């Protein structure tokens, strides 16, 4: 009879051992999966920081040499599109056909990194126009922003509209419409906040 007491203790310990084994097995299985750019890991955090830095620097250099402003003003006021006459009015397969677009494609597109470019504008900075949309960003997407000031006498850069100023569009002297309204006082037309969202495909 008393022998059974011994056995019970052993059984209890064995049960614990089994439970711990199962848990350890599960933990091991979860930890042992391959680390991809999308899995939560140290390297993932690193990639996000890296992509944010690249996106910020790209915006900074493009703004400094004027490419960014040229890209924002490459708007067809008659057809109200960035893409000349094609539909939709924004780019989906890569950057726009100018220096800013080339920089985007070389920094991200060629490295299998997707990007969206949105422009925020308006008196409350709540209106949004899309310049590039490559789909819905993943959970690990990062964002970089840069504000570009455009003045009333800025010319559009779209082919055929190089002599059209923003002021002439807003006061009706020229036909068509710019995507942003004249939201600022004096010589400034509006402050366009460019937002790049970048994520690994």
């Amino acid at each position, binding site marked *: 009879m008393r022998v059974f007491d*011994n056995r019970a203790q052993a059984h209890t310990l064995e049960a614990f051992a089994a439970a711990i084994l199962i848990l*350890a097995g599960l933990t091991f299985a979860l930890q042992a999966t391959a680390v991809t750019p999308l899995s939560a890991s140290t390297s993932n955090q690193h990639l996000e920081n890296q992509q944010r830095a690249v996106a910020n620097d790209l915006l900074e250099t493009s703004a400094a040499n004027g490419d960014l402003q040229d890209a924002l003003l490459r708007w067809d006021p008659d057809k109200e599109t960035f893409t000349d006459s094609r539909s939709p009015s924004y780019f989906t397969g890569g950057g726009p056909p100018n220096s800013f677009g080339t920089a985007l494609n070389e920094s991200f597109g060629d490295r299998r990194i997707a990007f969206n470019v949105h422009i925020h504008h308006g008196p409350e900075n709540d209106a949004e126009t899309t310049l590039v949309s490559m789909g819905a960003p993943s959970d690990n997407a990062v964002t970089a922003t840069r504000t570009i000031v455009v003045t009333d006498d800025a010319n559009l850069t779209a082919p055929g509209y190089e002599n059209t100023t923003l002021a002439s569009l807003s006061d009706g002297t020229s036909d068509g419409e710019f995507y942003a309204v004249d939201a600022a006082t004096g010589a400034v037309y509006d402050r366009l906040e460019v937002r790049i969202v970048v994520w690994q495909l």
Partner: protein
Amino acid sequence: MAAISSGSSDGDDSRGGGPRKRGSPSDDRRFRDADRGQLLLVAGLVVAVSLVALVVLLNASIYSENVATRGIEATDGEALEVRAAAVEGTGAVIDGTNRNRLADHDAAVTAVDDGITDLDASLARTYADRGGVTHVSTNTSSMERGSYVTGNLTANGTGGSNATLAADVSRTRGFVVEVDPDSLALTDESGATGNAFRVEFANDSAETRAVYVYEDNVDGNITVAVGENGGDPTVVCSASSVDPVAVDLTGGALGNERCPGLWAASAGELSGPYDVNIERTGAADGDAALTVLPDSGDSASSDHTATPAVYDARIEFSYRTAELRFETTVRVAPGEPDA
């Protein structure tokens, strides 16, 4: 276990010993010994597995600690980014106002002041949703008054082929000459003094620096060269011909090419106030634009169109977040060379 075995052996001893009674306690004892071994084995296993689990647990907590304390460096530059936005916004307001050619300096100063108030509201709105508070302010008395000069590359009725863009200036910014490459003289370094269009800077002590723009007669490139006191010039940079090509004298650029040291080697070497002249205008078609700060008074005299302008402005900028307080005063003069 000790109590159990002693109890059993007590029972065995009291009964003295018959073969039948002996057999069963000895079986019991063997059985208990086997139990003990199994127990030790299982306990060892439990300890070993627990240790492994502990290691995994510890590793996970170190990892999350690591991740939780990371990422501060990504927002390090935010104050500088906001500062850059404020400076750039102010620059755009000043230059845009100058290009609007307001009637007098007071109107220009008021327009810039209004523009900066508007910029303040806009920046505050933009950065509020990131948890930062910005403030940009200026004082109208801190703005220096100057002239915005524009004109074609012509003598503009002065009678010769030379014209003064701005006389007696102490500072120049945003000086860009845009030329039609086809109109430029075809010459070389030694022939430039006698044939090429030039922008001349001359100070009161008769020192001059001239920036020559011509088409090189060997490779056909648009070439920019700098000469000292009328001597043979030295080539600073050249670029293949595009139409039209902009020579940014203050920014140091020729078209899309960098042209480093252009300002430092020319007007930057002169001491005291200087005149900005364009000479041999027959050898170039195009136009020029610059903003100047006169040595005295508010306006610089010019043979071309000089309108009242704001030369620079000082802004007080502050940016605050939960972790950061950043305040600075910045003098904004877009396109002013460092020299």
